[in-house]
């Protein structure tokens, strides 16, 4: 680090890493930069900007990992970024050099993008990766011949086995990149005279760049209004069929690449790779789905089993920290805010990390082995009638553990409409936070009996709730499909890559990066709402709150045994909550929730659990002054069971109310962390607001119907 600090005036060189999907680009990025990575944002889009620092021989270099793409033609947000960075439209992200990674087995597809980069006039070097696979497929690439044809430096690597990484470092250090001049001339496929004013206005030094900008510039919402208007005007007057030009370019380019390939590629023999045997099973009409289901089951088992340990530890740690702060700090509102508002708020963010990290770990493994695209292949047919894409299966499945990583995973879907539908419906999948609510309520009203000798009624009820969530997902998706409009055409063109063992280091880095993104991006919103909810739940009209406290203190002074004192404390905290602002709100909404079978106490729990569903259980415990271990379901259940409605004389938690509540929780958007993530992914409050409104309405109507059926 000392060296870089001593010469602050020399600019750090920026190297952009680019390549087709599944070529091992990220592995190379990880090996070059290690843990020196930073995830940022590109303005105007949700694409993560992955930047890392490579240190070599006392110098440091900024490496930018661009999203994988097949060409410079932008089809998705990811590819708009590639277009923007490589066309050097943004001064901040302008790379000095470009390192293009090509899969040795798929030379022609790689060269398609590589030659486009050459035509843009970028300073380029090419890495032929996966040389091991090429050998296995009996392919030999004559590297020197290829170098002569392209005119850019070429390296051979096998990043998975850490071969050739030092050569890449050396190449970057030597700045061994070159800009050999066009592979094909723009005038071969369009009339370049029409482009001279584009070149002039944008100060571009070649025709290909001008053509790219004219053809795709409007897709980049990051472009200034002035430039957009200029392009729009130009498009109206221009005398070129740009679409035809693009087709012509593609044809000419591939034709020229084929002739290059004939001279540099030696096929020793054609072998049909052995993975087709594995695909026979994994893509089988019956086995394929069964195996997918089995893998899902295993993943959820693992998440529930493994995440609960660190989650309990985090829970315990923040509880200890709160009580330590309460004792260490002088009594007062600041101490209360810290100990009961801020610290639990931070805890509420951190507690999600084990689930997010594990889920993304498993997803990374599935992705890395090549299995995930098989799942997309199998599921696409069944998702489409609902306006979803084969790729929507990943967010939806993740949603069963937690909607947050699910919503984050939706960004891989290229089509805007399909992505939005996926984001909007994923939180309807019953996540793990709903489980404690379900379990308490089912235990209350569904007998622990068996029908047909082996089917447990409680398990059946639980299954029913999960299925209800799935039905909600499909119905809502179908509804949104008819409402949302887009001009983009939906398509599925995915590579089913060769099966490989996962790269564990990359898996770990994904887990780390995704967790970090969640904490930094969504954490702020979650913390803010927790604090607001804490204030609303703690403070109320001072006169009533004070009198409750005075009353409590007076009673405690008279108490004789510790048990009595505890009981007084509990009654007081219940009374304080009832009279707090949240309590007042709970009473205020009582007329609205009465048709669902809820009283104002349940109303309080509904509002308090807006932050997170699992809060429902602990709020109920406070309202009904349940002593002992609030985590103990049995105590809570017994107390709830004893509650009698003073007006009707019946149980508060009868079948109708309990089922109505369960159904409410199936559909309601009671999770601000999800809202915060949706806000981040959609870049605004519009979609999270729509989501909250529609989910709450859905929950209300469904709960109303349920209550009417059972009462």
């Amino acid at each position: 680090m000392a060296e870089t600090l001593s010469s602050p005036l020399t600019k750090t060189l920026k190297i952009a890493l680019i390549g087709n999907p599944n070529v091992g680009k990220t592995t190379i990025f990880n090996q070059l930069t290690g843990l020196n990575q930073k995830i940022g944002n590109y303005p105007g889009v949700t694409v993560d900007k992955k930047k890392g620092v490579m240190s070599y021989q006392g110098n440091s270099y900024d490496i930018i990992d661009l999203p994988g793409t097949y060409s410079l033609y932008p089809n998705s947000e990811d590819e708009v970024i590639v277009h923007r960075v490589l066309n050097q439209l943004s001064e901040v992200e302008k790379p000095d050099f470009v390192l293009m990674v090509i899969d040795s087995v798929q030379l022609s597809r790689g060269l398609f993008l590589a030659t486009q980069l050459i035509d843009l006039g970028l300073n380029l070097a090419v890495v032929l990766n996966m040389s091991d696979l090429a050998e296995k497929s009996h392919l030999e690439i004559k590297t020197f011949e290829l170098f002569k044809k392209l005119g850019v430096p070429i390296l051979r690597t096998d990043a998975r086995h850490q071969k050739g990484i030092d050569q890449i470092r050396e190449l970057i250090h030597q700045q061994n990149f070159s800009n050999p001049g066009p592979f094909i001339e723009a005038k071969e496929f369009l009339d370049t005279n029409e482009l001279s004013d584009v070149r002039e206005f944008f100060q571009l030094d070649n025709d290909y760049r001008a053509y790219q900008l004219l053809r795709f510039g409007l897709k980049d919402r990051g472009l200034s209004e002035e430039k957009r208007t200029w392009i729009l005007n130009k498009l109206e007057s221009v005398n070129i069929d740009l679409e035809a030009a693009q087709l012509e370019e593609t044809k000419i380019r591939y034709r020229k690449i084929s002739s290059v390939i004939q001279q540099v590629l030696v096929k020793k023999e054609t072998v049909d790779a052995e993975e087709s045997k594995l695909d026979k099973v994994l893509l089988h009409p019956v086995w394929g789905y069964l195996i997918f289901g089995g893998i899902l089951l295993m993943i959820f088992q693992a998440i529930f089993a493994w995440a609960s340990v660190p989650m309990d530890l985090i829970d315990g740690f923040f509880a200890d920290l709160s009580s330590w702060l309460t004792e260490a700090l002088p009594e007062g509102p600041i101490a209360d805010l810290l100990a009961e508002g801020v610290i639990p708020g931070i805890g509420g963010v951190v507690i999600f990390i084990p689930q997010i990290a594990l889920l993304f770990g498993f997803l990374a493994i599935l992705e890395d082995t090549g299995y995930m695209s098989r799942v997309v292949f199998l599921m696409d047919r069944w998702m489409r009638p609902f306006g979803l894409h084969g790729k929507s299966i990943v967010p939806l499945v993740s949603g069963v553990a937690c909607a947050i990583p699910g919503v984050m995973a939706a960004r891989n879907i290229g089509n805007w409409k399909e992505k939005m539908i996926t984001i909007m419906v994923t939180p309807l999948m019953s996540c793990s936070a709903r489980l404690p609510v379900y379990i308490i309520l089912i235990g209350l009203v569904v007998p622990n009996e068996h029908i047909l000798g082996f089917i447990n009624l409680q398990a059946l009820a639980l299954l029913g709730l999960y299925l209800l969530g799935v039905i909600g997902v499909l119905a809502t998706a179908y509804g949104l499909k008819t409402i949302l409009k887009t001009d983009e055409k939906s398509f599925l063109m995915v590579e089913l890559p060769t099966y490989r063992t996962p790269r564990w280091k990359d898996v770990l880095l994904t887990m780390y990066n995704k967790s970090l993104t969640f904490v930094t991006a969504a954490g702020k919103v979650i913390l803010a709402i927790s604090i607001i909810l804490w204030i609303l739940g703690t403070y109320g009209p001072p006169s009533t709150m004070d009198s409750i406290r005075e009353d409590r203190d007076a009673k405690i002074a008279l108490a004789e045994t510790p048990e009595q004192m505890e009981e007084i404390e509990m009654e007081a905290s219940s009374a304080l909550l009832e009279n707090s602002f949240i309590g007042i709100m709970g009473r205020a909404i009582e007329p609205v929730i009465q048709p669902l079978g809820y009283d104002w106490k349940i109303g309080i729990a509904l509002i308090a659990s807006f932050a997170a569903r699992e809060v429902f259980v602990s709020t109920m415990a406070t309202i009904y002054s349940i002593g002992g271990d609030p985590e103990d379901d049995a105590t809570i259940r017994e107390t709830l069971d004893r509650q009698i409605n003073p007006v009707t004389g019946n149980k508060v938690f009868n079948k109708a109310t309990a089922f109505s509540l369960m159904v409410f929780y199936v559909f309601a958007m009671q999770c601000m962390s999800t809202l915060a993530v949706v806000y981040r992914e959609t870049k605004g409050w519009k979609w999270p607001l729509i989501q909250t409104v529609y989910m709450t309405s859905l929950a209300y109507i469904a709960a109303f119907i349920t209550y009417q059926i059972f009462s």
Partner: protein
Amino acid sequence: MTADQLSVSNTATIETLQESPLKVNLMELGFLPGKKITLKHIAPGNGPMAFRLDETLLALRKEEAAIIQVKIV
């Protein structure tokens, strides 16, 4: 015929690509006149089709495959 009419394990040569907004996407993936493709799998329920093209396996929806005009070898 078009590629969506092939049966599993048929190999065919691509003749032309029909006019479609997706034509250029197919071309950039390497579906070009003269190339050989082999249909390897069809997902259940008339789902996507997986073609081997050179050394890779590529999945397309049926209507995308219908853009590709082929001749069985």
